């Protein structure tokens, strides 16, 4: 399996009042294509911080984050803000806990958002096919306020995968769902990621979800 993501010696600390709180201390991780890694730990243990560092939304205090994509090695940790944004736009998908659907776009438009941002109209058809595979084709013209929680999260997954990213990051994607929908969403996510041969890093405190990953990395407070 080819390496998708390599994290080495990552360190990140936050200022909490006057105290510097180290959230990540010499964290390393490798992710391969088609692999699912679960980040497991209590709230505040650094799972979201790691995801945000990988996404380039934060800068590490120390360490390297390298994304392998299309025979290139992108050193995310050394990029500028604009460069990181470009990498995210093209190569990453993100599934949020609270869905974060754009309220003024319907399901179809939400899903095609990354496709349009990347100006990859060739990816529109497969993205919409994925929508259908996720059981959302009858909801295409509906707006997020008209959907249930499970439908919203499935829409969010379809959106995260629309531009066929190299890497998918999911932060507590089932945190706001009931057990049945949570199970369904996880199944769908796994299936679609593997179909694209992308990598998935999922942050969760749900052990049953973590158990289904290829690897689990545990975070402690």
């Amino acid at each position: 399996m080819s390496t998708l993501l390599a994290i080495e010696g990552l360190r990140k600390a936050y200022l909490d009042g006057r105290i510097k709180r180290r959230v990540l201390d010499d964290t390393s991780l490798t992710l391969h294509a088609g692999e699912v890694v679960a980040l497991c730990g209590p709230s505040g243990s650094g799972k979201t911080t790691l995801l945000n560092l990988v996404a380039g939304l934060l800068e590490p205090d120390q360490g390297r984050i390298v994304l392998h994509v299309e025979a290139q090695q992108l050193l995310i940790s050394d990029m500028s803000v604009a460069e990181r944004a470009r990498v995210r736009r093209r190569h990453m998908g993100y599934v949020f806990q609270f869905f974060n659907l754009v309220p003024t776009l319907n399901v179809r438009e939400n899903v095609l958002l990354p496709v349009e941002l990347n100006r990859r109209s060739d990816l529109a058809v497969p993205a919409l096919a994925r929508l259908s595979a996720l059981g959302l084709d009858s909801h295409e013209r509906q707006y997020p306020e008209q959907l249930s929680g499970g439908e919203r999260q499935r829409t969010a997954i379809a959106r995260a995968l629309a531009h066929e990213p190299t890497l998918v990051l999911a932060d507590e994607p089932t945190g706001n769902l009931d057990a049945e929908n949570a199970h369904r969403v996880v199944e769908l996510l796994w299936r679609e990621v593997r179909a694209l041969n992308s990598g998935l890093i999922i942050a969760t405190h749900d052990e049953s979800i973590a158990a289904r990953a290829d690897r689990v990395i545990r975070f402690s407070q």
Partner: protein
Amino acid sequence: MMLLAKSQMRFLLRVPWSALTALVGLTLGVASVVAVHQISTGVDSSLRDTTPPHLTELSHLLDFPGLDAEGYFSLRRRWRLGEYPEISAIVPIVEGQAILAGRSVTVIGADWLALGIRSAGGSGAITSDVGLPVIDMLAESQVLAAVELGLAEDQRFTVNGRKYAVAGVLEANLGPVLFADIGVAHELLQLSPQTLSYIGIRVEDSWFSWRAAMEQLMPGLSAGLPDPAVPEALAIEWAVRPVAYDLPSASFARSVLFNLGALGSLALVVAWFLIYQVAVIWLRRQQLLISRLGALGVGPGEFLVGFLFSFAVFGLMATALGIALGQALSGVLVRLSTAGYSDVAGSPELGPWVVGKAVVSGLGVCIVGGWAAFSREWFDFRLRRWLALLLTAFLVALVVIGAAVEASGLLGGFASILALSLLAVMALTVLLRLFRPLSEHLGGRVLLRMGLRDAVWYPRVIGVALAALTLAVATSIAIGLMVESFRLDFVRMLDIRLAGDLYLRGEPLEISQARRWLEAQPEVVRVRASGVVRGRAGGRPVELSYADYDAGQMQRYGYNKALGDSQILISERLSRQVGAGAGDLLEVAGGEFEVVHVFPGFGDPVPRVLVSLAAVRELGLTTVFDRLTVELRDGLNGVPQQVPQLGRQLGPLLGDRLKDRFAALNLQRRDGVRKLALQIFDRTFAVTQALTLLAMAIAVVGMYIALTALRLTQGPTLQLLSFQGVTPRELLGLSALRSLALGGLALLLALPLGIAMAWVLCRIINPRAFGWTVELQFPLSGWLPPLLLGLFAALLAGLLPAPREKGDLDAAA
């Protein structure tokens, strides 16, 4: 309860940026009210100085042909017997022209005692209720002289062989006038003691006791009230006219003050929208807190008290700042504007009325706005459809009545504008709802669609701010169109009044000599002599302008023929006052003439009548030419640039020769006068422009707060877009697009509303206030700058940074 109040106060501290911007907006609103009041008070004070003392306390003037002392005493007897309980004073007045040192002066005599001037002790010294200098008005041969006469206190002069003394000089722009006791006036005018010109009365209607208070509350406000009605029996028996007809410039000024007061109120209305919007947003930010308090058993009334307490403190702060800013602003605006009135030097001191008004404005806006927002948010109050329809019908009726019923006066005119504004605000809500489904079919790039949809999807968040912006822009358009239309009329008026290249004034003898000399000069094409005398037409005081009016001169007034000896032209003001038009007969100075044309007088201070020289001579009126209009062959090349006096800045040719021969004449280049007049015009309206800009600034603050709130609710979306790699520049573009879309929506309504308001201002309010109809024009300069400014304002509001505040984190907790 105190804990709740404390928590609300602390909330304000946790949203300092939001609180500060709201404070700025409200402060500007209060400042506008204070500035307008102070300017108006200053102008009003100057107006009082220009009011002739015999008219100060009177409401109406009565006369009939052949009025004499017998008629007066008959009326007085009936009044004393209680026949006219509404009348509180009756004063006999005589008025006429006398020659003083070769100059025609107006002499006005009145029974000063009847005006409330009373003797104080045996010294004969008089104290005055009406602000006259302390003089011995009952002494024989004493007069008060207006400053234009150039007489000094204690100076003596002789008229018709009798000596008189100047007891005091009135420092007011009243023209060449002498005031005296009625007996002294009879002597000066060589009239029999039986002769009277008219009788002044003071009618105290049901509004009387309110007028003084209303004038204190808002100087000029009484201009919007109907005139006190004269007892019907008197109106049948006598020719009655309100005193305001004899004081057209004061009426003009009071109407301007009324307009200014209305504009000052506009800023406060916009500030109310702002506070309401802010209150809604702050309540939403505390939604979690409110629901927690509800779970703890805190009732809505208890929370409301705490909420309003914090708003009251906020309002008081804004009031204090607004008073200081308003006082400073009034000084600036006064200097900016000449307004064409007497000197208005600096701002008056802060009196209890203006401070009270500021407190009520600042505090009132906060309490009422806060309460309204609370009702909406807590009780989810929405206007039911039937109520909305009823309200719409009421507002439409108000528009129609205010515009169509002349008796509704200025108040009616402005009520129709207010109703139009409220209709537009209601239409905005409907428009937003209509546009939402339309926006779902928009094409184009996703960020474009998002930006445009954001503008119409959140009416509850931005609706009020959008309404305020619409109102501010519409008013700016209305004022802009009105001023530009007014300006075009004004230029036309200048063309009529300032014909020729040169204008000379002076003593009749010198003018006559200058005329003969000028006619012989090669540079001169034509010399026209003219004169002006005061008289009465249809019972109204008028200015009779006389000359040999040929067809060329008449064309300037819109009439294509030479003026015949039995014909007159009258100004629109007089036409409206006496109800006469072209083809009607009108009594002028004892003779009857045919009105052949009504010309736009452009609010002339005194209504004008154009009459031929021969006719004026036939009437036995004094006819001397004291002014010349000169047309030059090559324009003004031979004449000095500097105006107005000869003897300065000599140029070659005609200017030199004029100065050598006629040093005492007053020479004016017409272009200089025109330029000065236009400068005065522009500066006059600078105040109104400044006030509309102030309202726009408040609307921007409101828009900024609303858009900031919108940005907060869109936190997750922004987070998503940031993750999706949308660059800060693209996010900025999204904000800009949303702001421009909002601005565009506001302008969509603001333009027709502004035009409607301008129409009411020009066709309804201006004739009622100033006596002439302004033809509404649509120059680009009238409506385009406010539109662009509105768009820029919306853009600015959307792009200004919005720092995240602790209060927002609380909301997210």
